[in-house]
């Protein structure tokens, strides 16, 4: 034990998780510290500061190639963070797919990070990173596939600009998990739930059809919309004929999109639209977990 360890014990930092320990919540890793939450699209960089109280500030964004935008705005962005720690939501170059019969052995989710081949078998691709959400009632799973090279480049890009990356996640996948957790909260199969989930995050759209707890169809696209939400309706239009009668719509956006609920109600007449969108929802979830 050296003086640094003693100092860490005396200022209680030794009892908190390390800042880049992904197993712990953001608030516990950075208590009373300002951080930044970045969102990266194909040609768009957005950010918002997180206050010491964990409250997200108003978002800002630049329509430019993220590397250039980050280099240009680095000096301003560093003022939003105490020590340069940031979380990144990658909203491009990922794939969310619906898979079946993936291994669900105990510890398989951890094993998916260290040895994905053992879990995915023939679906494994070299140079990818994975996350999975299993349907507890069926053998289907939602698989998130990330380009490992993209994450390394993202880490290098932020390191070169003087930031320290504490988390890299997929905003769309995170919002989809949030929507599923919010609506599927009853244990067991006695009260099956059906919904058409629509997730919108930083231009990416993900749609999932859940019918009687069964995940039927999933479609995910990145860079679908910017300011105009018309492409969202166009992407979702084919689902209209395939949805069973009575299935409602659950809409979750990282920021509330004006008129999207109304346009969905018009595009899917007779279906209830439940909008779970909240201001700063994605940033709040990122800070919460």
């Amino acid at each position, binding site marked *: 034990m050296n003086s640094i360890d003693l100092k860490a014990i005396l200022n209680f930092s030794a009892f908190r998780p390390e800042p880049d320990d992904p197993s712990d919540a953001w608030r516990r890793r950075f208590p009373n510290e300002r951080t930044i939450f970045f969102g990266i699209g194909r040609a768009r960089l957005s950010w918002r500061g997180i206050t010491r109280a964990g409250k997200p500030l108003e978002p800002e964004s630049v329509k430019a190639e993220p590397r250039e935008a980050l280099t240009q705005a680095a000096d301003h962005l560093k003022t939003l963070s105490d020590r340069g720690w940031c979380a990144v939501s990658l909203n491009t170059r990922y794939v969310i797919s619906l898979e079946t019969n993936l291994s669900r052995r105990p510890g398989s989710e951890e094993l998916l990070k260290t040895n994905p081949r053992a879990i995915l078998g023939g679906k494994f691709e070299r140079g990818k990173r994975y996350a999975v959400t299993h349907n507890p009632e069926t053998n289907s799973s939602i698989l998130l596939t990330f380009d490992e090279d993209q994450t390394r480049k993202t*880490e290098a890009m932020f390191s070169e600009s003087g930031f320290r990356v504490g988390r890299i996640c997929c905003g769309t996948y995170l919002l989809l998990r949030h929507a599923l957790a919010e609506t599927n909260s009853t244990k067991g199969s006695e009260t099956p739930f059906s919904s058409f989930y629509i997730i919108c995050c930083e231009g990416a759209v993900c749609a999932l059809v859940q019918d009687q707890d069964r995940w039927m169809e999933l479609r995910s696209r990145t860079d679908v919309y910017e300011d105009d939400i018309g492409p969202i309706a166009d992407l979702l239009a084919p689902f209209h004929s395939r949805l069973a009668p009575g299935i409602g719509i659950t809409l979750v956006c990282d920021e509330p999109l004006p008129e999207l609920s109304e346009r969905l109600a018009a595009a899917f007449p007779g279906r209830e639209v439940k909008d779970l969108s909240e201001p700063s929802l994605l940033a709040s979830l990122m800070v919460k977990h």
Partner: protein
Amino acid sequence: MQISDRQIDDFKTDRKDISPPLPVVLRLVPILFYCSIAVALILSSIFFLQFRIAIAKRDNHIAQTSSLVAQTQQSKNERAALEAQIKKATDIQNWVNGARPLQPLLVEITRSMGPKTSLLDLSLDRAVDDPGKILMAIKMGADSTKQLDLTMARISSMNYRAFSPSQTLGRGVLDYKATLVRKLPQNSPPDGQLESPQ
């Protein structure tokens, strides 16, 4: 169906040497450390105040002791002065008591002096070995022994008898010395003892 809202899947490249946080119960260590510092500071403050109070009390005590010692010394001096005065008073009282039997004799001697005679010196001393005997020495201004005879007659009338007289007359000064012994009265005891002097 229930899907938990568990932690976020993180795609950041993991650092290998991440150590888990220390157990929460070990927070007692720094807490006790800070508490001990706080208690030490409080106790030090209390001890410092007590120390200051003790020093003030000691100084006050020393001052009181000095004052009392001075008072005691003053009382001793006053007592010594009083004792000296008492001794003087006692001596005077003793002298007065001791001289009381001789006072009638002295009065007779002084009354016996004529108008042309001056009494220059008179001493009456009891003999050390026999207090019943009085050594008398008279120095008077007289040209003859007439005054001495008159004085001795008056002394005799006081029932004193002179023994071993010696007189010297010269230049108007008569110096007479004798030993006076009190004569026994007529109703004195038969064994003929002298009356004891008082």
